[in-house]
């Protein structure tokens, strides 16, 4: 296994002075070549801000990013200490990103071809003719037929799925080591989502890139990720191999979230209420003391769960869980 990125104690806050709000708390993970790590969470969990922090796409005047983000290429590069111009050279080249809504990421007044060629030529010295050739290869690689003809089309002429394929083509143009995908299939229909997930899996096999995949959907996680981190209120609350997290979750939030999703297998049985998690995700200026999930947790114990600190513990085999009661709960379940 080759590590390509290490994130250490990443903490991100917005605002200044008294009004400073910390939205990401000490997040740690590594990305490995050829592997996919999923960050899962609901709105307000800090998953997207984490990815923007890694790309250094947060405005420095309005936010503070602390910790370490180390890119392991020929040498180790700490992204947080790079100058903006060096960061710009890395962005798109070593680390690329795709977003949820491809229509807002593509420029409506340029053709698809122009936009792919621009991405290539802004980083590589390449003749227009060669860049054009490369663009055709890329369009072909992301599974769009009739690549040469597509170069001249505009974003509005394409369907949502096609646009996301174009975004992927642009992201892959410079053969990045890392692809960050922020909810790339959320705006798509399920049948198209299945196509895009299949495409990303195939491209990863072909290129060996590492992927950081951000989603709210455990179903998508099962399809794409090797490892999974569950986030809640800006903190990592569980991490492990995807199989471990999905099949043997230890954090009550993770298992509660999975039980709250209706299952296809029990469709039409009218089994009554879904198990829901009462309440909602706390606002960052009003985080509960101790475990941030305890006010919504059915297993919470006064005097234990509301007392800080709540460290993240290793439950074995790299399965990490932030819950003071995980051992008790696990024994009770067995």
């Amino acid at each position: 296994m080759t590590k390509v990125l290490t994130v250490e104690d990443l903490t991100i806050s917005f605002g200044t002075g008294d009004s400073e709000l910390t939205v990401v708390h000490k997040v740690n993970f590594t990305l490995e070549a050829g592997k996919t790590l999923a960050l899962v969470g609901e709105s307000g969990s800090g998953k997207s801000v984490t990815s923007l922090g890694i790309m250094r796409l947060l405005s420095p005047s309005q936010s503070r990013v602390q910790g370490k983000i180390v890119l392991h290429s020929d040498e180790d590069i700490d992204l947080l200490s790079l100058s903006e111009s060096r960061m710009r050279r890395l962005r798109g080249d070593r680390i690329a990103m795709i977003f949820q809504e491809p229509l807002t990421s593509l420029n409506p007044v340029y053709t698809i071809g122009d936009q792919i060629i621009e991405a290539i030529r802004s980083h590589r010295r390449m003749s227009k003719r060669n860049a054009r050739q490369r663009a055709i290869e890329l369009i072909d690689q992301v599974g769009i037929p009739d690549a040469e003809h597509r170069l001249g089309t505009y974003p509005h002429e394409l369907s949502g799925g096609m646009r996301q394929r174009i975004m992927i083509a642009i992201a892959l143009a410079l053969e990045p080591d890392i692809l960050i995908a922020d909810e790339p299939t959320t705006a798509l229909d399920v049948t198209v989502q299945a196509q895009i997930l299949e495409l990303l899996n195939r491209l990863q096999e072909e290129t060996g890139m590492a992927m950081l995949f951000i989603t709210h959907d455990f179903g998508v996680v099962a399809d794409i990720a090797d490892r999974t981190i569950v986030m809640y209120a800006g903190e990592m609350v569980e991490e492990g191999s995807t199989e471990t997290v999905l099949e043997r979750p230890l954090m009550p939030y993770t298992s509660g979230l999975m039980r709250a999703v209706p299952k296809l297998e029990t469709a039409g049985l009218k089994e009554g209420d879904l198990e829901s998690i009462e309440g909602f995700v706390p606002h960052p200026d009003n985080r509960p003391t101790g475990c941030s999930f305890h006010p919504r947790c059915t297993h919470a114990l006064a005097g234990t769960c509301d007392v800080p600190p709540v460290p993240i513990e290793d439950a074995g085999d790299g399965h990490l869980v932030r819950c003071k009661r995980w051992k008790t709960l696990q024994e009770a379940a067995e």
Partner: protein
Amino acid sequence: MSEKALIETRDLKQHFPLRKGLFGGKSQVVKAVDGISIEIPRRSVLGLVGESGSGKSTFGQAVMGLTKPTAGSMTFDGIDMATASSAELRGLKRRMQMVFQDPFSSLNPRMSVAETLGVPLRFHEPQLNGAQRKDRAAEMLERVGLPGQYVDRFPHEFSGGQRQRIGIARALMVHPDFIMADEVVSALDVSVQAQVLNLFGRLQRDLELTMLFITHDLAVVGHVSDFVAVMYLGRVVEIAPTRELFSSPKHPYTEALLSAAPTPQTKNRRQRIVLKGDIPSPLNPPSGCPFRTRCPYALEECAHSTPELREFASGHKAACIRDDLSLASATQQQKEPA
């Protein structure tokens, strides 16, 4: 279905003509809804699933009488909406209410909850005074799981899930018999989605509501519905009691939808059928079966004529000419690759 259905549509069509550019030219027609006949029995929930562009929301609007259908009929409790008198229509509109997708844009930010919930009362129960309307609003808030004293608050003071509860309360203010719910949980987080689905289930049972529940999410539709209709390019391609549809689908599109729905399991995963291409443009639908261009089982005959819904089992209809398919269900864990 011995009792007469509350809602019945007969060959309902909603076509939209598209004007060509400055110099005219051949005018085109989008057949957003192209001949739908369904019945919703009293006190039951019909789930309508489909992808974007399938026409499910347009159908919902036609059912609500918000658009005038191009052809076909829609009857509510035996009254034909097209020929009803205006007095009858006003009565019908009280009995039919809707809940919308986006709880952020469907509430007026400058109206307090009491005002928002009072609007349907002003129209349908004009004899009530302001204090009475406010009392009714507070009562209804409690019914949807919010404290009654929140009537004086404004939309920005609520979370998405709470706003959706207010949207539901507004629909229930005038004691309707029928609710059309269009993608009501799609904008919500999973943990909140479960709360709102439970609320819907409870209200539907307690108030004996009839519902048309429109969504793109199969698992959600499977949880709330008694019957499910699957739409593709303006037509219903399969309709069946929910359990039946999920356990023995008869239309290849239903099979593909079920197999594409992501499930959080890493073991015993179902064989996934990945369809080719996108849903075709409704401006230029394929000849014959609308699904044939993406169907893994399409035959030459499929291009000849548009298949009508036909009965496969009691109450289970599908629009597919093939009898010889054994399609994968959502309830069995695995299937051998076809």
